[in-house]
């Protein structure tokens, strides 16, 4: 039997992929491990390998075509096999040429498992029958839930009733009538779904990248489903800036330069030990407190790379010193701005920091990066007239604003967490040990 190659799931938020370039053509002989194509996901362009030996019998979509995960994209026949027997696969593919038609609804189960690149879904590869209970299949039809994008929680990945109910709830009010406001359809981007936009004279249209769609979808989902609120605090940065100046002077020969942000990452990560709910996710009917402290740092991308932003993840940030945090952050930011981050660089953040201080911003609020429960928005450290010991003087201060998921974290908890962060930052020697 020829093998049908389907669009793989290459990241945990991926719903569709674009074949940027085919590395093979029909008739080519391929062996396991050979690169078939470059595939652009929502966040990165990656190489796609074959897991079968044989001859490329058919390419079912062209370069530039965007299709939903699970869609057949090529057929590989073993030597001597009649490639035409793959005809069924071809007709089943119906290779959509417009992105709007190809993109599927994403109703993936809440992400609590991270670290695997290819997630098993209800549909096994090669068009195998979906594992789904009868009532779940019926409910999926009634509620308009796409079962192909679901990961079942029953035995062997079976999609069961509660998975459909959860997916329907995520779709909004659990009804068919909710036309997927979070669905990433190019023709009607999520961010503009509620208001038609008319292109007037002199206006121009900009094609939306996969990343831009992901940003739109995830942030609409975050802002519309998470009960956000903000708590701000102002930190005295004078001791920290003094320490940083001294350290950087001493570390210069070693090529290490600590940023203010590195101190903030460490201060936040250390505070997690005392405040585990800041390292947690709301999971529908329970709260998951994560075992690792992985701090995400928002990194903006240069216009020549298409702009946008990604979240680079500093893993086990609570166990890393300032030097390592600094090196990791620089390496990831450099990679993001040049080659682009891979899924492994972006998965598994449990808390996120967004810092616009370098742009001179005083303060701002950020939108939570699901499935995190909090994000810290940091402004610049600026000199201000301040009152210290009843004396008016000049001091350097930084405004930070936490955005919080009220399902997980209450206001008093947020205040306590910020107090711990302030203690860490205002007594910066504690960050050295």
């Amino acid at each position, binding site marked *: 039997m020829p093998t049908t190659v389907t669009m793989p799931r290459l990241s945990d938020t991926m719903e569709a992929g674009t074949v940027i370039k085919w590395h093979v053509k029909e008739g080519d002989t391929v062996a396991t491990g050979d690169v078939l194509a470059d595939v652009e996901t929502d966040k990165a362009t990656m190489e796609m390998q074959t897991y079968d030996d044989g001859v490329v019998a058919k390419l079912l979509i062209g370069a530039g075509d965007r299709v939903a995960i699970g869609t057949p994209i090529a057929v590989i026949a073993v030597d001597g096999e009649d490639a035409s027997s793959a005809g069924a696969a071809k007709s089943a593919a119906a290779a959509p040429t417009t992105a709007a038609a190809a993109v599927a609804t994403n109703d993936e189960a809440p992400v609590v498992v991270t670290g695997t690149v290819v997630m098993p879904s209800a549909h096994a590869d090669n068009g195998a029958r979906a594992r789904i*209970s009868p*009532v779940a299949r019926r409910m999926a039809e009634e509620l308009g839930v796409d079962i192909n994008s679901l990961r079942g*929680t029953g035995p062997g990945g079976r999609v069961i009733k509660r998975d459909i109910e959860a997916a329907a709830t995520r779709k909004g009010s659990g009804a068919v009538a909710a036309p997927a406001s979070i669905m990433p359809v190019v023709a009607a981007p999520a961010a503009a779904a509620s208001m038609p936009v008319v292109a007037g004279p002199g206006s121009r249209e900009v094609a939306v990248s996969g990343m831009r769609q992901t940003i739109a979808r995830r942030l609409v989902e975050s802002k519309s489903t998470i009960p956000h609120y903000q708590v701000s605090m102002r930190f005295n940065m004078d001791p920290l800036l003094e320490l940083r100046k001294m350290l950087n002077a001493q570390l210069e020969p070693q090529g290490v330069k600590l940023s203010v942000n590195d101190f903030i990452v460490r201060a936040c990560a250390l505070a997690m030990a005392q405040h585990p709910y800041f390292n947690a996710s709301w999971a529908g009917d329970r709260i998951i407190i994560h075992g690792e402290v992985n701090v995400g740092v928002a990194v903006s991308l240069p216009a020549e790379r298409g702009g946008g932003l990604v979240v680079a993840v500093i893993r086990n940030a609570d166990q890393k010193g300032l030097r390592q945090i600094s090196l990791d952050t620089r390496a990831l930011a450099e990679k993001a701005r040049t080659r682009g981050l891979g899924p492994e660089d972006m998965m598994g953040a449990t808390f996120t920091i967004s810092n616009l201080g370098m742009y001179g911003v005083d303060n701002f609020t950020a939108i939570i990066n699901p499935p995190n429960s909090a994000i810290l928005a940091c402004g610049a450290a600026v000199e201000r007239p301040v009152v210290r010991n009843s004396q008016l003087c000049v001091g350097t201060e930084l405004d930070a604003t936490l955005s919080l998921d009220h399902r997980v974290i209450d206001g008093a908890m947020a205040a306590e967490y910020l107090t711990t962060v302030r203690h860490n930052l205002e007594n910066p020697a504690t960050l050295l040990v």
Partner: protein
Amino acid sequence: MSTVTVIDPTMTATREIEFRDALREAMSQEMRRDPRVFLLGEEVAQYNGAYKVSKGMLEEFGPRRIIDTPISESGFAGMAIGAAMMGLRPIVEFMSWSFSLVAADPILNNAPKMLYMSGGQFGCPIVFRGNDGAGGQLGSTHSWCVEGLYSNVPGLKMAIPSCPEDAKGLMTTAIRDDDPVFFLESERMLGMKGHVPEGDYLIPFGQAKVRREGTDCTLVSFGRPVNFCLDAAAELAKEGISCEVLDMRTIRPLDIDSIVRSVRKTNYCVVVDQSWSFGSPGSEVASQVHQHCFDDLDNFVHRVHSADVPTPYAFNLEQEYLPNARRICEAVRSCLYRA
């Protein structure tokens, strides 16, 4: 003849009597009402019944209608079948259904087939009744659950009450029924007390009763294990699992409509049957649920039966052998993917 009323579910009785008293009331009321009805069996007359079900009946109805038999099940069951064919309405008491096995030929090979084989010339309006299932350390030969074996035979009816009120209403219906009725009681339930109406009333065959309403899982049972199901449902309620307990009351005929109605609501079904699993009423119920509710099920029908071994004598093993509340709870959690 006295007035007959079909029992109204809202009917409430304030009087509490034992299961054995309810059986006796049904038999006595029918014997007063219909001179064709009589009772025979081992020790039913002078000893007042091995389990005192027929206590005082010899005194009221005399030795022509309350008949002590020798220990000869095949003989007295066959004789009673002949009497039924000739127009009487016998009630045959087996001290235990385990002892009916020696009467298998008359009760299975003759009674249920008589109407068919005689082309409608002879019916067989007879009630066979007695204790069924583990009675409490009686050993494997005296602890039979015969419903798996006997319900397989076309032409008979089978009633298995779980409470005194049903015992009386189902027994009255059994005695008036024109077909052979296999009436399965339990030694463990004879002392169970419950509210029982005083007059005569009929509980129609093939009408299940919802013993507890629920939304998350349908528990289907009959006879003694219905009470295990109610215990399990109370336990599961503490975990936030709401079980609907259906008491089938008769398994031939089987009220599949009530089961379907409940399973369409809950999407999960656990069948609890104290007979062995292979070729049992429980497997038949599961099969029919799969047939009628295929698109309503979120998991296959789970079954809780007695363990597939001869009934153990040891107390602890016998308790574990039965489809007890703990095993039911485990099956429900597993069925609901909450194990």
